[in-house]
């Protein structure tokens, strides 16, 4: 040992440098874990202080509360990454629900449900057309379709539709072991989109468009097609949320979904997505969805008025963005 002091010293310096790198990497990135950590802390707090929190009834309730926002946020994230926004998702949820409920009274669910989701995807395609081809600002385009889709839903059915069907309802209400099937479905969707954004050329292109559209165009990539894709994905996930929500509640309301778009945007932002595009992650959005869901669940458990939940949500969004600002 003592015959190789230089070697030991070199090894030590390499080690020190690695520790240094890891530390500075951590210093830069710890903020991105804040939502996750906040979730764990809150959940622990809830488990310790409330007997009701860990009851199976409450937990599956929690999952059922978050899957709607979870699915919508996932689509919203893809649009936000492309430097867009989709305000029409709430109306699309109602559209898919009404269409699904109507079709379920005529067709078996393996046909009716995909059809309803397809209709929602077409609605997303409308957004994509307005943004990618007619170059409307995404906020304006989806504000317009939000209104138009909602109106269309009421034209189709002014009154709630109750589907006369049980197979799909049972599927939505079922559990795999102790876990609700919809929770597994939602987690599956998150993994899928995470893979899509990381490992596929289309996913990377969407990130890149949000970062610098001109550079992507000059790289010979079809920008329009990818922007279109982002809105199609958003419409599809809103549609999935809509059909599952309608089946869970057992009734399709034309008025459902108002304000859902804001919850989805909130989840993305809390999870670290930048509304300027190009920045954001599936992991962060997942944490944002969980955190928002947990907070409303907790405040319900402690029977705090719903209005306070909204104040909380507002504060959380501001805190999340302030925390991000310190990131390098």
């Amino acid at each position, binding site marked *: 040992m003592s015959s190789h002091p230089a070697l030991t010293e070199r090894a030590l310096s390499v080690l020190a440098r690695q520790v240094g790198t890891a530390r500075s990497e951590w210093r830069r990135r710890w903020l991105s874990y804040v939502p996750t950590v906040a979730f764990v802390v809150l959940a622990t707090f809830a488990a310790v202080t409330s007997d009701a929190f860990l009851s199976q009834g409450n937990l599956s309730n929690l999952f059922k509360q978050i899957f709607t926002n979870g699915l919508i946020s996932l689509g919203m994230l893809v649009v936000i990454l492309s430097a867009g926004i989709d305000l029409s998702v709430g109306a699309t949820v109602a559209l898919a629900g009404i269409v699904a409920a109507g079709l379920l009274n005529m067709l078996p669910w393996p046909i009716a449900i995909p059809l309803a989701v397809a209709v929602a995807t077409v609605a997303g395609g409308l957004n994509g057309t307005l943004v990618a081809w007619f170059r409307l600002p995404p906020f304006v385009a989806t504000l317009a379709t939000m209104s138009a889709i909602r109106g269309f839903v009421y034209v189709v059915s002014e009154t709630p539709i109750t589907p006369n069907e049980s197979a799909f309802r049972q599927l939505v209400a079922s559990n795999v072991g102790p876990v609700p099937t919809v929770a597994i479905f939602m987690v599956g969707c998150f993994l899928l989109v995470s893979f899509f954004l990381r*490992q596929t*050329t289309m996913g*990377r292109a969407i990130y*890149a468009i949000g970062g610098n559209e*001109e550079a992507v165009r000059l790289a*010979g990539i079809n920008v329009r097609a990818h922007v279109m894709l982002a809105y199609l994905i958003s419409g599809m996930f809103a549609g999935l949320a809509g059909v599952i929500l309608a089946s869970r509640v057992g009734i399709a309301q034309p008025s459902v979904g108002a304000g859902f778009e804001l919850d989805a945007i909130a989840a993305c932002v809390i999870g670290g997505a930048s509304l300027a595009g*190009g920045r954001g992650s599936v992991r962060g959005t997942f944490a944002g969805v969980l955190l928002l869901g947990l907070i409303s669940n907790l405040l319900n458990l402690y029977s705090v008025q719903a209005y306070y939940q909204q104040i909380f949500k507002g504060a959380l969004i501001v805190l999340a963005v302030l925390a991000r600002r310190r990131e390098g």
Partner: protein
Amino acid sequence: MSQAVAPASVPPRLEMRGISKRYDATIALRAVDLVMQPGEVHALAGENGAGKSTLIKVLAGAVGRDAGTIKIDGSETELPSPHAARQAGIRVVYQEFSLVPHLSVAENILLGQLPSRAAGVWIDWKAAARRASAALESLGFDVPDVRRPVASLPVSQRQMVEIAKAMLQQPRILVLDEPSAVLSGGDLDRLFSAVRSLRDAGTSVLYVSHRLDEVFQIATRITVLKDGALVGTVDASAIDQPGLVRMMVGRELAEIYPRRSATPADPLLQVRGLSRPGVFSDVSFDLAPGEVVGVFGLVGSGRTDVVRAIFGADRSTGAMVLDGQTYRPRSPGDALSRGVAMLSEDRARDGLILQMSLRDNMSLPSFSRMSRYGLISRLQQTVLVRDEMAEVGVRAPSIDAPVRRLSGGNQQKVVVGKWLLRGARVLLLDEPTRGVDVGAKAEIYRIIATLAERGKAILLVSSELPEILGMSDRILVMRGGRLVGEFARSEATEERLLAAAAGVVEEDAA
């Protein structure tokens, strides 16, 4: 030497002594001195990363210093904030403009001091327009209508608005950070005469520029920084360009341009009668493999537009033949698939996605080479990107580092590497060294030379004459959207190129 301009009895306008600044582990400035006399034009030179911007920011009150004293007209000043610096009579015109794009020229120039009536309730727009026009005219700047929004002006005119805004305050110290980056010949002359009249009125001007010829044209003394330390302050008359470069990089100017010789070959790209209505017309030339053809012209001569048309980024008419086959790109994608790539003038805007990694940036146009059914093979991607990084000599902490953390020179190499990875044979380089320091420039020139040696056909657009002369085998000159001259390397001189570009008739040319 510091007594060269003013007698010793008058205190210097600005006396910065022992200025030090460190960011975390990086030392940005190491006990730097800078002394300016009243009514002096003083140049600040040095490579990127030499500490120029940090020194300017300290002077502007934008960053605090760790050590050192600052005296203005003999009295010690703290400069804790940009506001304090303004109070002390210091104005800085940065490279990134601080203009409000949707407000008019007049409002921008008079921001915060618009003339008003009725005790400050109504804005007196007529008076505002008059004062703004007067300010521009006194500088000899030609801005058509001060009521137009700034966003509608070309970049060179925006620069003048920015400068007029700073000069209107009659500052004691005016700092111009790379003002010529977007100005061409005539505008630059007007800027210089404005600077001179300001100097004669007693303002001290600190002129920061990469362009050495400008430094010698305008400055009486030059302070050179390197690696955050002071190399020295010299009288401009006591040193020549090679000497200054030696001070900046510790290297000879001649070594900057690599020696290379082109062997004549059949043209790879033939351009015939290329036109874009209202922008350029009837542009014809050939480009052979292994050849570097320089395109020189003043800002607005249409050189960039020609390049964009060849790249398929803009529509055009005319005929082009690439490798013996008709070439009619309808989009950059078409051009790339035929092996034509462009390096744009504005890397950050057109070439890079700053917050994304090197890996993503370099592989973006080449996804088809590293993916199957839309799935990216990470391994293949890593191998291809790593190889290309080594090829063009990108220095980066890791393949996953965001490109925004790389230096200007390294960023430019990323863009070159990205196109080579895509299999480019014709490279359209539009101002490839804009905003990079002398050291990185030399490296980019070496890459260009290597590319030419490997048989790439290179069109080099530049407004820097030494660069055009140093790198090109042939030189095309554009003026007003037309090709007005073609010179072989041997017959081209700075004077002849400039005369052709400016439309001056050569009197003594045969």
